């Protein structure tokens, strides 16, 4: 189905040795590919593989230029371009369909499709105020909207308000907007099918193919590997910011793509297994519910044995992050949680902390750190407030004086042990790189000396080297202090490499708890919940939106 013309033609888009560094953290390196008119390129990779960064570069997002630009060249029809804003990209014929909908809720489908490109009619005021005062030609707008929608082959009510549309319709409206733009030569679709029902997704795939026949090229980003294989002419697999494989659908399989994405042979489990002796239950959770927006936990029951590393996995938005947040009292929760044999009253962070539990939050910058304060404050604060560490009591405890010397000492100790790269213990947390910030968060939790340590998304947004160190640190603390660790992560491979047992969360419930040594496919099936037979298990290794 390739529309590739003879090889002498100039490609529509050439990406030549493009690379990008964020604050010394390399997220993209030497990416090369080219795309011809009418071709569909599939882009796949795990979370943080560099897909979004690549698209941001292509689309001229300000975040790229603000953080020092990018390396390499981007050529459109043989001419080098360097967009400074998305408007430049649009002018050059690149259309983007975002993962998050950018529709105006109070506008109808027609108005949203034709926003800022409305058909207009002349009226006398134009003589005075110029073209901006032209009247809208509603009838022609309706005709153009109908036309764009019919190209898609999906029926949307052109008069429906953005706010009232089902998600599927919103997605089609977004695409129709790009179709109406006659100059669009390249369409970037970032997970367009993630929110669609299966039947809607099929229609979308069909209409995208129709668009390709009209000569529009596409970059299609998706985690639904089957779609990528069905739709695309070329598949590029990104891992850790590098292109690991450029292939054609006919020459590959879902299984191969999945294993290339995670970079390991899916069958083989790397680390040696520890022999877990049967210890007593330290944390018992019965019928827990947590009202955390976007990560609702509905009814979760599990128990964790003393001294083990317990993994919580699952796709994004299914509720795995809600569990730790609920137990630590950060979001409204209910159910029975028993810690070391004693029931825990929920919804009070101070109480949870006082029960020798500590939490490394997934939202590092939002919850995990005092960005404007120095490292020593960040590390010592929780222990100071909860356990009166780093406090000198004066007048028989009437005045609790902050002990800066002790704080300095503990901060320097952890800076040393965790290899936190910084200018000193008084450097502000905001100035550190993601990996080093994560180490500060871990240090903060370690200082409390917890018996139960919750760590959520420990490696999100940090580079490979730091990832390894963070995971090793967690493992080491577990071995040295005997602390029970509960790791929540979207990356299944990461969980399998560090945990003893893994629970998979689906739709706010635990769909199963397995030994980490079980094959990845088994976890993949659990992640999908109800219809495991429909999708090959290996395709779930990416461990996120499916």
């Amino acid at each position: 189905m390739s529309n590739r013309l003879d090889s002498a033609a100039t490609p529509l888009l050439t990406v030549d040795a493009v690379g990008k560094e964020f604050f010394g953290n390399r997220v993209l390196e030497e990416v090369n590919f080219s795309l011809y008119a009418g071709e569909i390129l599939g882009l796949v990779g795990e979370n943080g593989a560099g897909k979004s960064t690549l698209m941001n570069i292509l689309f001229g997002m300000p975040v790229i230029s603000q953080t020092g630009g990018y390396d390499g060249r981007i050529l459109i029809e043989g001419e080098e371009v360097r967009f400074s804003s998305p408007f430049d990209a649009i002018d050059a014929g690149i259309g983007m369909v975002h993962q998050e909908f950018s529709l105006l809720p109070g506008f109808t489908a027609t108005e949203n499709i034709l926003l800022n490109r409305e058909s207009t009619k002349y009226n006398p005021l134009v003589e005075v105020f110029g073209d901006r005062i032209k009247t809208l030609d509603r009838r022609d707008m309706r005709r153009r909207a109908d036309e764009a929608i019919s190209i898609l082959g999906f029926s949307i009510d052109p008069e429906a308000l953005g706010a009232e549309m089902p998600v599927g319709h919103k997605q089609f409206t977004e695409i129709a907007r790009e179709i109406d733009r006659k100059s669009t030569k390249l369409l970037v679709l970032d997970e367009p099918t993630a929110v669609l029902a299966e039947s809607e997704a099929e229609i979308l795939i069909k209409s995208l193919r129709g668009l390709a026949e009209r000569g529009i090229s596409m970059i299609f980003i998706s985690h639904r590997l089957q779609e990528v294989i069905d739709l695309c002419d070329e598949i590029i697999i990104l891992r850790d910011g590098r292109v690991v494989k450029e292939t054609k659908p006919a020459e590959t399989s879902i299984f191969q793509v999945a294993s290339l994405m995670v970079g390991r042979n899916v069958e083989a489990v790397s680390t040696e297994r520890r022999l877990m002796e049967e210890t007593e239950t330290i944390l018992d959770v019965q019928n827990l519910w947590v009202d955390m927006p976007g990560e609702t936990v509905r009814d979760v029951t599990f128990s964790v044995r003393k001294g083990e590393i317990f993994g919580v996995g699952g796709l994004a938005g299914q509720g795995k992050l809600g569990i730790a947040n609920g137990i630590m009292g950060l979001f409204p929760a209910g159910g029975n949680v028993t810690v070391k044999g004693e029931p825990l009253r929920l919804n009070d962070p101070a109480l949870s902390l006082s029960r020798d539990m500590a939490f490394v939050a997934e939202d590092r910058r939002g919850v995990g750190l005092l960005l404007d304060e120095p490292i020593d404050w960040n590390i010592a604060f929780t222990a100071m407030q909860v356990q009166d560490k780093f406090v000198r009591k004066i007048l028989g405890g009437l005045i609790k004086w902050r002990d800066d010397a002790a704080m300095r000492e503990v901060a320097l100790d952890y800076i040393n042990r965790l290899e936190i790269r910084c200018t000193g213990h008084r450097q502000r947390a905001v100035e550190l790189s993601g990996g080093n910030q994560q180490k500060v968060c871990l240090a903060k939790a370690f200082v409390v000396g917890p018996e139960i340590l919750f760590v959520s998304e420990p490696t999100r947004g940090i580079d490979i080297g730091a990832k390894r160190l963070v995971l090793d640190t967690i493992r080491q603390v577990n071995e040295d202090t005997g602390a029970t660790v509960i790791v929540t992560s979207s990356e299944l491979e990461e969980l399998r490499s560090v945990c003893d047992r893994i629970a998979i969360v689906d739709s706010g419930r635990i769909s199963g708890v397995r030994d980490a040594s079980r094959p990845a496919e088994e976890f993949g099936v659990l992640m999908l919940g109800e219809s495991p037979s429909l999708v090959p298990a290996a395709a779930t290794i990416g461990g996120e939106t499916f």
Partner: protein
Amino acid sequence: MSGKFEKFISDFGWPRIIIALFLLLLFASTPFVGVKLDTSISDTLVRVGMNGVLVLAMVPMVQSGCGLNFGLPLGIIAGLLGAVTSIQVATSFDALYQVISSGGSVGVFASALSSVLQSGARGLALFGIALAIALPCAAILGFLYAQILNRVKGEEMMIATYVGFSSVAVMCMAWLLLPFNSPVMVWGYGGSGLRTTISTEGFWRHILSDFGSIDFGNFYFPTGMFIFFAIMVCIVWAFFRTKTGTAMTAAGSNPEFARASGIDVNKMRTISVMLSTVLGAVGILVYEQSFGFIQLYMGPLYMAFPAVAAILLGGASVNKATMANVIVGTFLFQGILTMTPSVINSILKSDMSEVIRIIVSNGMILYALTRKTRVKR
């Protein structure tokens, strides 16, 4: 050497250096425009002492994330209540002393207090009474004020401004209606309702200022007032070195972080607002004892703005303030405010000091709020 110098400049901040140089220029120009240098310096220092505690009242709220205390008039009102009550007490007990002297008998406590008020400790005792009344009032008003601010997170400064304004309006009625009857305070013709301006002469005028003060020709230095200011600065500084103060700073820096560390953020904010209001009450008493008058009714209305301007000028931002910001800011702001009108008046040979004062003080607020500079470590 140059590295140290650069570090000093970046720590101190260019805006402050420029303003300090301008102030220096104003002082240097005094002999040429016929203004006395020693009087100018003395005036500046007196004003620094008068306003210092009011500026300090900004710090707790800024640190806890409630923004600048535009509701300072609320604290000031509590201080005023203490002030007028102390004068009422003085009048009542002076009358009682007359009764005792002419052989009447009263309770032990009443006779003890009235004889103290006739002794050398009269001023100090009355000032103590003023504080004793003002502090609980401020604490209660501050608590209520905090309940409002905890419901409008993110919009504190706007709401605080109007809390200040409306409390002044409410008190305009209260000053008329409260049952004070001391002849030195009530309107002469009606016999009820407090006057707009009440002298503290004969009660506690200059009670702090004159303690160990230095008088040298035209130069006057209110030592006691500065000692008092220093003590207040030390108390606030020490508070932020305690566990609670640390928690308060963290709650202001990142409320989510504080909550995850088991801190009750609303409680921290409440404490900070109460502390700011109490400091406002103490501040106005210090101000009045030096100024010599209690100004009621619309007096407190715009008192927040010079204090806000001073602390911003001192390098504080809307969410971080240090003691150095308070001291440097008060000195620079009051210095400019004292010197600009007198020097310009002398040049222009006309009196427009009030106009210039308004332009300078509001201009500085505008300047400081538009430049949200990050405080250096």
